[in-house]
C-alpha cells in the first residue's frame, strides 16, 4: 500500500517534469530542423512559470472550472497508468478531460475558440476509436485489459500488433496536435485561427492547459511503450523513437484539412487495425 502511494505521488510529480523536458527537446529539434539554434532545453518550464505568475483573467468562470477538470483528468489517468490499472478506464478518464477542454473553449463566444473547439472535437473523434481498437488488440493478445498483464507478457506485443502500433503512432500524432493534423491549436502559432482552442485562455489557465498537455504526452508515450513491454530499454526506445518520428513528421508536412484528417484516420487507421485484429483472431 505504502509502496503504491509512493509510486503514485512520484509519478504525478515526475510526469510533468518529463513532459516539459520532452517539449523542450521538441522545440530544440524543431529549431535545428529549420536551421535555427532554438531555445534552451528548460524553455517550457520558463514559459509555464511565467504564465502561472501572470495576472488571472477569465472570460467566464466555466473556463477556469473546465481547465481544472482537464488537468485533474489528465493527472488521474497518468496515476492509474503507473498503478497498472485498466487500459480502457484510463482511456475514458483521459477522454473526459479532453472533452472538458473542448467545453471550456465552447463557453467563450470568440469565433476563434469556437472553431478551435469544433476542430478539437473532430480530433478526438479521429484518435479515440483507433486507441480503443489498439487496446482491443492488446486484449486479444494478452487476454486482459490490465497493464500489469501486459507487463507480464513474455513476448513483445509489437510482433503481433505491428499495424496497431503504426495506427497508435498516428493517433499520437493527432493527440499531440502535430502537423499535418494540428488543427485545433498549435505550438507554432502565428495567427489567431491557429491558436484556436486556447485563444481565450490566458495566464495561469493557459499554464494549466500546458501542464495537462505534458501529462497527456507522458501518458500516451507510456501507452506506446507498452508495445515492447518485455524490457525497460525496449520501452524507452519505442517511446523515444516514436516521439522523434512525430517531430520529424511535424516539420516535414504542412497542415491539412479536417476532412483529410477524418478520412485518413478512419479510412487507413480503421482498415489497418481491423486487418491486424482479424489476423490475431485467426491465429488464436
Amino acid at each position, binding site marked *: 500500500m505504502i509502496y503504491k502511494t509512493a509510486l503514485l505521488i512520484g509519478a504525478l510529480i515526475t510526469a510533468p517534469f518529463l513532459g516539459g523536458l520532452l517539449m523542450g527537446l521538441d522545440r530544440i529539434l524543431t529549431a535545428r530542423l529549420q536551421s535555427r539554434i532554438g*531555445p534552451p532545453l528548460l524553455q517550457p518550464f520558463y514559459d509555464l512559470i511565467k504564465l502561472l505568475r*501572470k495576472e488571472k483573467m477569465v472570460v467566464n468562470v466555466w473556463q477556469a472550472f473546465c481547465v481544472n477538470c482537464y488537468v485533474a483528468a489528465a493527472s488521474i489517468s497518468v496515476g492509474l497508468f503507473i498503478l497498472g490499472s485498466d487500459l480502457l478506464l484510463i482511456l475514458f478518464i483521459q477522454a473526459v478531460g479532453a472533452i472538458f477542454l473542448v467545453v471550456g473553449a465552447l463557453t467563450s463566444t470568440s469565433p476563434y475558440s469556437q472553431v478551435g473547439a469544433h476542430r478539437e472535437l473532430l480530433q478526438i473523434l479521429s484518435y479515440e476509436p483507433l486507441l480503443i481498437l489498439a487496446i482491443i488488440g492488446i486484449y486479444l493478445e494478452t487476454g486482459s485489459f490490465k497493464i500489469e498483464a501486459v507487463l507480464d507478457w513474455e513476448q513483445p506485443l509489437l510482433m503481433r500488433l505491428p499495424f496497431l502500433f503504426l495506427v497508435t503512432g498516428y493517433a499520437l500524432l493527432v493527440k499531440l496536435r502535430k502537423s499535418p493534423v494540428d488543427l485545433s491549436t498549435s505550438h507554432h502559432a502565428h495567427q*489567431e485561427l491557429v491558436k484556436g482552442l*486556447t485563444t481565450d485562455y490566458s495566464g495561469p489557465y*493557459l499554464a494549466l492547459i500546458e501542464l495537462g498537455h505534458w501529462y497527456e504526452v507522458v501518458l500516451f508515450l507510456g501507452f506506446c511503450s507498452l508495445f515492447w513491454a518485455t524490457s525497460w530499454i525496449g520501452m524507452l526506445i519505442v517511446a523515444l523513437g516514436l516521439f522523434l518520428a512525430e517531430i520529424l513528421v511535424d516539420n516535414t508536412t504542412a497542415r491539412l484539412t479536417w476532412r483529410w484528417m477524418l478520412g485518413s484516420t478512419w479510412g487507413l487507421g480503421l482498415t489497418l487495425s481491423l486487418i491486424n485484429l482479424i489476423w490475431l483472431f485467426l491465429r488464436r
Partner: protein
Amino acid sequence: MGIFKNITEISRMKSPWLLHFDCGSCNGCDIEVLACLTPVYDVERFGIIHVGNPKHADLLLVTGTVNHRNKKVLVNLHQQMPEPKIVVAIGACGLSGGIFREAYNVVGGVDQVIPVHVYVPGCPPKPEAIIDGVVLALKEFEAKNEKYGQGARGKRREANKEQEKS
C-alpha cells in the same frame, strides 16, 4: 519567498511572448520585425515567441503612427493583455508620428494613447535594434515585477480608471 520571486523573475525574462501590432505603418518596420523571426536572427533563442493573441502576450510591439481610427484598437489590445506587460514602440512613426506627423488623421506617437516603456528609433530600425529594444524592455520587467508581483488585479483596475479619466 525570495527564491520563488527569483524564479518568477528569471522566467519572465526568459520567456517574453510578443504581440506585434501594425498601427498604420508603411510596412517597412513590420518587415524588420518579422525578419527577427528568421533563422538569421532566430529570436526563439531567447524564448521569444511571436503570438498573434493579446491574451498570451507579454510584450506589445507597435509599429507605425496612431490615427483616430486605430487608436481604439490599440487601447483594446493593450487592455486585453494580462499584467505584467511592456510596450515597445518601433520606428520614427511609432515614436512621434514620423513623416505622417502632419497628416490630418494622425494622432502621433504610440505614447499618446498607451504608456510606452521602450522606444526604438529608425526608419525602419534594423532587426538588431529591435532585438536590442526587446532586451531593454526585459529589464523593465524587473522593475515592473516589484510593482505587479502582488495584487495585479487591483493595479489593473487603477490603471484602467486612470485611462478612462484621461
